[in-house]
């Protein structure tokens, strides 16, 4: 696998149920995402976008296929490690539709939670967190509770949390769904900047076609497979 490849998927299959109730969501998906790329993942509702994202994130077990994360093959018809949660903690950052910050932790505690779990000291973790929060313009809110911040500020804090463990991959599940157009554009631009500056591969599930021209590439789930779409096709929407 190329050293520049962050995610490599080969012949990935996901089926739910058995017998008459068997549902095939993904059948033979293969694609790659390079470091520093912001890739949009689109498909109609129920087509398996989140399922695909969760398989890449080592949350949902595929039925068959191969998954590479960086230079580590993590799945080949079965998980090749028992520590999928450790992989998530060390290699992946998650961003959700809502911020999903832990409500009983303040912003800096939310951001330092994973780095501290990964073994960094409190001081080291807080240094990283303050840098990130400063980067997102909310350093002054570091010791505020999520309940006292606006939706946009919380979403930025959530992105900071996703970046705090210096991940190779960020999986963003509709991060702009709850935001207005202006804020959505800001967030996607921010993700693109992060991808480029920090050499992180980002897969962003979105329904919002207006965000697609901001991405480097577009992947679409079509007939249970993943196909590439040209960004230029969506340029006029922006």
């Amino acid at each position, binding site marked *: 696998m190329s050293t520049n490849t962050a995610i490599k998927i080969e012949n990935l299959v996901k089926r739910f149920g058995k017998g008459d109730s068997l549902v095939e969501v993904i059948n033979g998906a293969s694609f790659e995402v390079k470091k520093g790329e912001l890739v949009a993942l689109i498909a109609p509702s129920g087509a398996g976008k*989140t399922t695909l994202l*969760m398989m890449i*994130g080592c*949350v*949902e077990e595929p039925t068959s296929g191969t998954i590479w994360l960086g230079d580590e093959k993590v799945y080949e018809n079965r998980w090749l490690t028992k520590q999928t*949660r*450790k*992989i*998530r*903690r*060390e290699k*992946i950052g*998650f961003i*959700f*539709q809502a911020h*999903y910050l*832990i*409500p*009983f*932790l303040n912003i800096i*505690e939310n951001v*330092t*939670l*994973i780095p*501290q*779990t990964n073994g960094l000291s*409190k001081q080291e973790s807080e240094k990283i967190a303050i840098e990130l929060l400063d980067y997102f313009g909310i350093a002054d809110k570091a010791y505020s*509770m999520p309940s006292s911040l606006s939706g946009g500020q919380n979403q930025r804090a959530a992105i900071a*949390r996703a970046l705090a*463990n210096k991940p190779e991959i960020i999986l963003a*599940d509709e991060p702009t769904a709850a935001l207005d157009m202006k804020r959505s554009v800001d967030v996607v631009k921010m993700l693109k900047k992060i991808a480029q500056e920090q050499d992180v591969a980002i897969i962003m599930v979105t329904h919002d076609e207006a965000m697609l021209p901001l991405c480097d590439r577009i992947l679409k789930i079509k007939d249970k497979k993943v196909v590439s779409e040209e960004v230029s096709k969506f340029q006029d929407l922006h």
Partner: protein
Amino acid sequence: MINLAYKEIKHTFGKFIITAIGVGMLLGIVLIMIGVYRGMIIDAEVLLDDLNVDLWVVQENTLGPFAEASRIHEDLKDTIHTIEGIKSSEGITFQNLQLPQKSKMIRVFAVGFDPYGDINPINPDRLIDGRGLKRSHYEMVVTDKTGFKVGDKISLGRDIYRVVGVTHGTVSSGGDPLVYISLKDAQELQFLYSNARIRNDRKRGIKTLNSHMINAVIAKVKNGYDVDEVANSIRRWKHNSVYTAKEEKKILTQNLIKTAAKQIGMFTVILVVVSTIIIALIIYTMTLEKMKEISIMKLIGLPNSMIIKMIVQETMLMGILAFFAANIFAHLIYSKFPKRVVLETPDAFGLFIVVILASILASLVGVKKVISADPREAIGG
């Protein structure tokens, strides 16, 4: 490392404290129940300790005056006195009376004894006002719980008694306040029929029972004599039952209090089980309220051990706070109970162990929920 339990409790402090106080009040009742049992044991032993005699001679084949009816002739005390090794012996009676006080009646346990005898059941240390009995008739020493004071007059049977002394902390094994009257008065109250009844019995040809009866002979053994050997020599007559002070105490604490202790024990066990279930339900509900956060924590890679630690620490802290609340609550209300409640440190320590075990058990419910939490539930909605 961030302590999740501390952060979560800090975030929901008021709710957490109120819940702990609620559970604590329930556990406080457990402490009170144990205290009631301890009080019963102490109450049962008050009279025996104050009498401080070596032997109890009672009616044949009975367990004595505290367990069942015992009637023996008063002159048995003189016969007992002649036995080798006996230092002193006296007759004694016990009976429940209702004393009229203003508009209500007070139930008391009356001890009848010879004020001129060698054995006096009134412990001078417990006498807080007045004096002991000095006359053979119409004097009474009462316990302060009855509300009577020195000089008060009490109408009882055919006579009026004067309160000459007040004691503190004297109760019967049943928890009734103790009063002391002379043996002669006690015999009249217990064994002397009314004139009408005597006349009626005579016409029926029934021989009237003489009133020179007692419920037991109490005796002290001379120094150098073995109490059991002296008891055995009295038993040889086969017309009376004899118990040593140790046996009499056993009859009181094991035979009489046993049922009550079982009853209290049952209540205590049920309360502990209910408390455990309530703590478990609270922890379960608290865990359910955090399921979204737990799913997110699992999704972003937090190990189960950290989340489980949070649940277990919260449960333990809940238990410990409830334990302290229980102690405060029990100490605030125990003196309000009509019967003696004794709160002892070893019992509180025992409850602490039980609370810790109950908390561990209760936390398993939350831990099970944590383990089963699906990180996929964090996605969408």
